[in-house]
């Protein structure tokens, strides 16, 4: 099981580059996403001489990080990136911030100029640790060979522990070339010097939370990405808890799949483009149980009107997420899985009677809201509605029954994907929630496909977003990754256009996608299959052909150009101020300047 390049430990000392690879291997890494350059040549040389770690050559460093994110989010493992110094590192920054905002465990190794040149403005030198300090959960600059192995292990521990996040290890070239001692990773259970996040909840708080929920007449469970980060067991426990209590459950964008979309207790996504029933349930509840979500502004809308009458229970592994935006009544610090297990145990043993009748009345109210059928749309005539395209994609993948993973870019298509594609399992949905990074979806799907070679990986994209990392079509070709790019092409940066229509008097400033490429020919240029659906009757055939083709595909779905994404809580409005459709769009014009300030 040793690296082929690894010399016998007692004959020749390992180089720093070999120590790096050995540490990766000992951390269970089998694939890394990267791009070579001068400062990391020693690592690439060591990679060449071994077989246990696979390297995926991306076409841009930003894509390496998104691919690692897709890999991490679909497997629960740490994603690993290798880039060179200077521009290699700065190109990775967007990906790092994306992983930071969405709590994705990533270790990014960056090359650096040799230690004696640091600070000299050497060729391809950048202050990588300085630049990435606010872009990462933590970062390291290795200045002494004897620190190298320890720092590598530390980086993995920090990336995956507590609230996960990206970690940068900056590696000067001389450290990679010189011999370096190897030390094993600390044994499990050995406490870290300073970073020891709390994972087990305080039982007194759990009991307080359970009693509040049992007495509640109008409860809601609001679950976020923390449940998914905690691992599949946490999602199973969430399902168990929701069914045990019979309470309505809504998921955030990052939490989709944590609770099955097909379950009758599910209200759909909440927030700015959430469902009518989810948002009104949040607004009208008397007790809210937030598990692994962070009261993001896309969820709360106007803060002083957010769920005004409720007691709030907030369980989060990151104490700084609690009481940050919204004052809560019962704070619980702990891992989502551990919290849910404790809640279930306490629910079963606590004698407090459940306010059953009131909760039944609450469900009747919720069912009234559901009858509004807020996601209804009319597909008539030849023009394809984007909602219909996503819905058919979902239905056809359901029909085929293949393991399916969806990634998205950012914009209207992302929201339609969240609304119309149902996720019954965690780790099947990769999207850039916090940072909102256009160009995320294609490389993320690439990372997912590497981790799940037999699965169906689809990037639901917009024609504008996809161009932000389109170069990765080359990576798909090189590694024969059968990723499907499903473009909802409305020839507009749709979400920008929607806001301009609703808030800026339909002055479509620079939001038209002028001079688009022919996506079919573009696919062909990248050795992929190109398909196009221009009318509704072509849609199903294109979807089926896209899925059936064994290689990568770009499907250019020409959709209605003026469709907006509803329901929508305009910026600065409250949950009960939703715009349900075009006929109510005029209300958006009443958004105050204070609201317009918000993004």
């Amino acid at each position: 099981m040793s690296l082929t390049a690894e010399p016998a430990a007692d004959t020749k000392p390992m180089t720093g580059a070999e120590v790096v690879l050995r540490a990766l291997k000992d951390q269970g890494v089998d694939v890394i996403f990267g791009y070579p350059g001068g400062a990391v040549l020693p690592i690439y040389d060591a990679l060449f001489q071994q077989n246990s770690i696979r390297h995926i050559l991306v076409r841009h460093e930003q894509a390496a990080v998104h691919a690692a994110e897709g890999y991490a989010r679909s497997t629960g493992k740490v994603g690993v990136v290798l880039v060179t110094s200077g521009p290699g590192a700065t190109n990775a920054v967007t990906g790092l911030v994306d992983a930071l905002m969405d709590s994705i465990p990533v270790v990014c190794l960056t090359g650096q100029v040799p230690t004696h040149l640091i600070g000299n403005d050497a060729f391809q030198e950048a202050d990588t640790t300085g630049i990435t300090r606010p872009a990462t959960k933590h970062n390291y600059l290795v200045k002494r060979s004897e620190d190298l192995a320890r720092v590598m292990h530390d980086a993995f521990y920090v990336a995956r522990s507590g609230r996960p996040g990206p970690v940068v290890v900056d590696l000067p070239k001389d450290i990679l070339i010189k011999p370096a001692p190897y030390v094993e990773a600390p044994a499990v259970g050995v406490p870290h010097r300073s970073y020891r996040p709390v994972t087990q909840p305080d039982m007194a708080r759990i009991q307080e939370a359970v009693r509040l929920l049992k007495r509640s007449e109008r409860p809601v469970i609001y679950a976020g990405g923390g449940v998914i980060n905690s691992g599949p067991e946490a999602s199973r426990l969430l399902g168990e808890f929701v069914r045990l209590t019979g309470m309505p459950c809504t998921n955030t964008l990052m939490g989709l799949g944590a609770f099955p979309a097909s379950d009758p207790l599910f209200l759909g996504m909440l927030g700015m483009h959430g469902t009518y029933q989810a948002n009104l349930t949040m607004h009208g509840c008397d007790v809210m149980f937030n598990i692994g979500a962070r009261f993001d502004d896309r969820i709360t809308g106007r803060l002083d009107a957010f769920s005004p009458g409720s007691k709030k229970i907030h369980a989060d592994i990151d104490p700084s997420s609690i009481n940050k935006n919204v004052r809560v009544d019962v704070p619980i610090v702990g891992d989502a899985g551990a919290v849910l297990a404790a809640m279930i145990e306490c629910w079963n043993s606590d004698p407090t009677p459940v306010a059953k009748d009131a909760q039944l009345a609450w469900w009747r109210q919720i069912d009234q809201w559901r009858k509004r059928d807020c996601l209804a749309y009319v597909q008539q005539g030849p023009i394809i509605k984007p909602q219909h395209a996503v819905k058919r994609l979902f239905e056809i993948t359901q029909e085929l029954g293949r393991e399916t993973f969806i990634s998205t870019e950012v914009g209207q298509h992302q929201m339609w994907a969240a609304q119309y594609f149902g996720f019954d399992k965690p780790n099947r949905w990769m999207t850039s929630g916090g940072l909102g990074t256009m160009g995320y979806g294609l490389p993320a799907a690439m990372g997912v496909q590497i981790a799940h070679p037999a699965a169906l990986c689809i990037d639901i994209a917009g024609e504008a977003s996809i161009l932000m990392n389109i170069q990765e079509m080359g990576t798909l070709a090189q590694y024969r990754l059968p990723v499907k790019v499903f473009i909802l092409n409305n020839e507009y940066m749709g979400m920008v256009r929607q806001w301009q229509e609703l808030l800026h008097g339909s002055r479509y400033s620079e939001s038209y996608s002028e001079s688009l490429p022919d996506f079919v020919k573009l696919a062909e240029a990248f050795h992929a299959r190109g398909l196009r659906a221009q009318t509704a009757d072509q849609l199903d055939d294109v979807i089926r052909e896209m899925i059936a083709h064994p290689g990568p595909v770009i499907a250019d779905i020409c959709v209605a150009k003026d469709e907006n994404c509803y329901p929508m809580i305009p910026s600065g409005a409250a949950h009960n101020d939703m715009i349900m459709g075009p006929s109510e769009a005029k209300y958006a014009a009443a958004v105050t300047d204070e609201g317009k300030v918000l993004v």
Partner: protein
Amino acid sequence: MSDTRIRTATIAVLVENESGVLARVIGLFAGRGYNIDSLTVAPVDDEGRLSRITIVTSGTEMVIDQIKAQLDRLVPVHRVQDLTLEGPYLKRELALIKVVGQGDQRVEALRLADAFRARVVDATTESFVFEMTGNGEKIDAFCALMRPLGLKEVCRTGAVAIARGAVAL
């Protein structure tokens, strides 16, 4: 709605003495828009492995709770203590104060320095440098008195603070 009253907090932070740790703390304050009224830092153990940072900051109760939580989740941070909340504590600051003058002004400066227990650490025929230790208000008061007497330059360390009694951070 939440409490909007602003309070001052003196926070002690025990950190790993590694490169970049101060930048991390200061970057956190700058990036999230928190105030720093003063900040001091120095290694505090024999091996130079740990440093102690004393930060005086101000904000609403919710903001100060955030500051503490944000500090605590930094990887090289060992412990965070809000001295303002956790019982009585001592807070001291050192100042070097240069006063230039002649005649009666000079005599008066020296007399006041004596009353404030400021030590003369340098003197010429036309100047004094006073060294003074105390809480910030005392130093403020002394500087205000020196202003008409020829105050030329002030150098202050910012506060260091420690809890009273046997319990340690």
